[in-house]
């Protein structure tokens, strides 16, 4: 039995290591970052999420929607109900029809979802040189590399190498697949003024907005990990007890007289 397990592990690890590097050749190296939400118990830093939300609001939301996030979800970031109501009320939404059958405009409410910057995809393309700015609700889960990818993308706008010809309306980004991205660099030093006074460096803004968008993609991350710890502790105790019960029952075979 032990021999078989050893053999299986040996075969698997030998096959996998000897294959390593066959597939990974075309992947772009991302600089991995330390995120507060990494690790066994890691969660979100509310202060960082609020800063990241500010970056989204003042920079990204001009072109990118966040369709799965409602204003009410911002309570998760530590905003009060009054703050959320006030923020929502800054937006006007078309609603209706009313009793006369007319559409009308009303201020947004906490239960409303974030308004989209463009009325439809064609409008969005027409306003962006034919490119569609993707919705950001799931962006950190929808890209290989996750939050590390997004952060690296945002800080990797560079002068193109001399042998690369940039197409019309495109920018060079060393992290983006193919190197040419339709979104120009958005983050510049002191572009925004953080409400909490943090210096708004490019690195800081990229990091904060990535953390915010990871919250948007995986809002249940914290409850997932706390639930997990309880479930695993229970299962661990259960398994240990099951092991000793098993030992005890099987020992009857060795001492049939008992």
């Amino acid at each position, binding site marked *: *039995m032990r021999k078989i397990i050893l053999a299986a592990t040996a075969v698997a690890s030998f*096959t996998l290591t000897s294959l390593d590097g*066959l597939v990974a050749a075309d992947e772009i190296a991302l600089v991995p970052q330390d995120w507060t939400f990494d690790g066994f118990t890691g969660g979100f830093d509310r202060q960082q999420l609020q800063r990241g939300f500010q970056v989204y609001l003042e920079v990204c939301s001009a072109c990118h929607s966040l369709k799965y996030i409602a204003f009410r979800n911002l309570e998760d970031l530590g905003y009060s109900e009054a703050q959320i109501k006030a923020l929502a009320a800054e937006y006007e939404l078309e609603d209706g029809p009313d009793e006369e059958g007319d559409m009308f405009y009303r201020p947004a409410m906490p239960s409303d979802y974030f308004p989209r910057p463009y009325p439809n995809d064609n409008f969005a393309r027409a306003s962006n040189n034919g490119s569609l700015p*993707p919705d950001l609700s799931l962006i950190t889960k929808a890209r290989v590399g996750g939050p590390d990818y997004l952060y690296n993308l945002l800080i990797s706008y560079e002068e193109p190498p001399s042998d690369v010809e940039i197409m019309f309306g495109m920018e060079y980004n060393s992290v983006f697949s193919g190197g040419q991205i339709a979104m120009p660099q958005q983050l510049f030093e002191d572009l925004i003024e953080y409400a909490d006074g943090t210096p708004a460096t490019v690195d800081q803004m990229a990091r904060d907005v990535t953390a915010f968008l990871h919250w948007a*993609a995986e809002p249940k991350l914290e409850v997932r*990990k706390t639930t997990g710890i309880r479930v695993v502790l229970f299962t661990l105790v259960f*398994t240990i007890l099951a092991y000793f019960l098993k030992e005890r029952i099987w020992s009857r075979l060795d001492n049939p007289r008992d």
Partner: protein
Amino acid sequence: MDRKKGVGRRAFEWFDAQLPIVTWLDHVVGTKYVAPRNLNYFWNFGALAGIMLVILIATGIFLAMAYTPHVDHAFDSVERIMRDVNSGWLLRYIHANGASFFFIAIYIHIFRGLYYGSYKAPREVLWWLGIILLICMMAAAFTGYVLPWGQMSFWAATVITNLFTAIPVIGDSITSWLWGGFSVDNPTLNRFFALHFLFPFAIVGVVVLHIWALHIPGSNNPLGIDASGPNDKVPFHPYYTVKDVFGLGVFLLIFFAIVFWAPNFLGHPDNYIQADPLVTPSHIVPEWYFLMLYAILRAIPDKLLGVIAMFGAVFVLFILPWLDTSRIRSGTFRPVFKIFFWILVADCILLTYCGAALPEGMPLLLSRIGTFWYFFHFLFILPVIGWIEVPKPVPDSISASVTSKHAD
């Protein structure tokens, strides 16, 4: 006499006389089913697969209550499950990763059968039922993967249903019939949802047959010899129920580590992008448990032959009991077979790896070698080593082997 029995006991006997379901269960997985006493931990994986099936059905029913099978709403409804449905994220992560762990359990179960010769007489029908279960599982997993209607869902459905166009003459008609139209669209999603709900219950039915067929000859064992005498066997309950419970605990610990700390590790990021028929992903790949078959499909340059090879890789298992000419069941006593068994394991890992790579250059070459070896193993090596191999001496009885081990 009757007076001495408690009320509970008498009530039970009254009920059991009219519907002996408890007695029947006792014969199936209880004290009346005797199993060889030397089963090792690889024999846990059948029960583990059964438990994963139950977990999948239980979570799946609740997911279906919140899911909308429509091309315009499916992706949104999955996100609603993840964000707004109470514990919906937990149900979905258990369900999605549960499918992977079902396959992990089944693949270990299958390779255990291959190593210990569990497919040999008198268990051929049991083995066949297992292959039918594998095929049903694949159908359930494939239709289920389409439901979230992400990019990989859509394009996997497109690639796989297009395989049927390779069938001469009637291929196109069959494909339109599967789609319910002229491309993968809303009717396809609707029928896949219906089928995804149906297959698990078909699986439950075949599992019953599988266990029934198991009980006729009884379980095989690591020595591969028939259990004789009472000293060779122990009652399934409590010996194997408690061993299965312990094994389940270990298996669940690994499962929970993935569910709670890396729930998207086994998935593809592209499936968090809503399906778009106008945008083809740069690299379409199935879930990990299909990568081996996918590598075989793409290893062969001809579409029809590729499809035949892919299905053949599963169907060759049906004739395996007659391809293996050795009369010794367990690989433990077959020195040559043992080596080729591990080469086959390595070959399957290699093919899985190649299935994830782009079909060009080195991975394509390796997948061709791997595909050749897979069929070569079953169609040539197994029959031949059965004839030329000199097996090691097989012990007379299970109890003799167990007691000699204790003497060491």
